[in-house]
């Protein structure tokens, strides 16, 4: 019991500082829901239905900017394909977990949760589960609260502040901090450049063309590098 309690505490202590970088995302999601014209409760429901910052921001900003629904959904799903890597990496660890945990665990698997739980991959199954649920529920709870705060503050912010531009700045930060070698820079630049050139395509379809060519360019640059 005391062991359990110390693991729970450890999960909470580890999760809190890692949530700090997520605060602006959750907050801006709340603000953007207000500006998008989507009904506040429906918009906020994305925080527990999707529970993923980049995908929520992508979907809500695109829906709000008049993109075709199919294009918005596709873009949000493409953003989230990185989770496949997390799922594959944690699959061996989860094989020792009970069935309910194998079903519930993936719901909590955001970037920070992955980073923390990979460090615990060699713990015994019960300790892993206690830690995973403890840190995961901290992230989840804070995410719901912070996005709701953005939703409450949103209507107070004048439209002239163009707060939707904050989404572009946050995405730029994600790109810059994620670049660990030049092929990723190429992927980002080509993705942006091709989207610029295809901006005239209906329903923001250029976004998907740009993303696809960007991924291709990054992959080719990586091959040249090797």
């Amino acid at each position, binding site marked *: 019991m005391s062991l359990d309690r110390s693991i729970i505490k450890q999960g909470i202590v580890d999760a809190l500082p890692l949530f700090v970088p997520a605060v602006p995302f959750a907050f801006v999601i709340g603000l953007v829901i207000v500006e998008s014209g989507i009904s506040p409760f429906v918009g906020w429901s994305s925080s527990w239905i999707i529970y993923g910052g980049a995908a929520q921001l992508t979907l809500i900003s695109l829906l709000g900017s008049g993109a075709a629904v199919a294009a918005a959904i596709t873009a949000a799903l493409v953003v989230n394909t990185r989770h*496949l890597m997390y799922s594959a990496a944690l699959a061996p660890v989860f094989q020792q977990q009970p069935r309910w945990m194998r079903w519930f665990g993936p719901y909590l698997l955001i970037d920070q949760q992955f980073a923390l739980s990979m460090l615990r991959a060699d713990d015994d199954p019960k300790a892993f589960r206690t830690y995973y649920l403890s840190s995961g529920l901290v992230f989840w709870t804070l995410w719901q609260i912070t996005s709701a705060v953005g939703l409450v503050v949103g209507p107070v912010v004048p439209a002239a502040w163009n*707060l939707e531009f904050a989404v572009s700045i946050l995405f730029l930060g994600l790109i810059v901090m994620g670049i660990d070698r030049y092929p990723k820079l190429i992927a980002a630049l080509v993705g942006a450049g091709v989207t610029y050139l295809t901006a005239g395509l209906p329903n923001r379809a250029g976004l998907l063309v740009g993303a696809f060519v960007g991924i291709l360019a990054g992959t080719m640059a990586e091959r040249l590098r090797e």
Partner: protein
Amino acid sequence: MTDFLAIVAVGIGTYLSRGIFILALANKRIPDPVLVALQFVAPAVLGALIVALLIDSDGNVAIGIPELSAFLVGGAVAYKTRSHIFTLIAGMGVFWLVRALI
């Protein structure tokens, strides 16, 4: 209603992307070429999104001096501080400042 269904669709897709290997393919590996391509999904899509979010209703990309200044300063701050909060404050600050000046 359409908005809610879109959210549910992305929710299901997100859950599957997080759960598929844990639930169903535990002894399968992602083929190496796919693994390489997956690493470039985030930068390529986010780069494309930054531009797409600035497209106006006529299909023009509305990037002016305020936006460009904000990207330059925001990018530099992100690189230096690795902090999303500082990046957001610097980027939006420059965006508002330059827009007020010109």
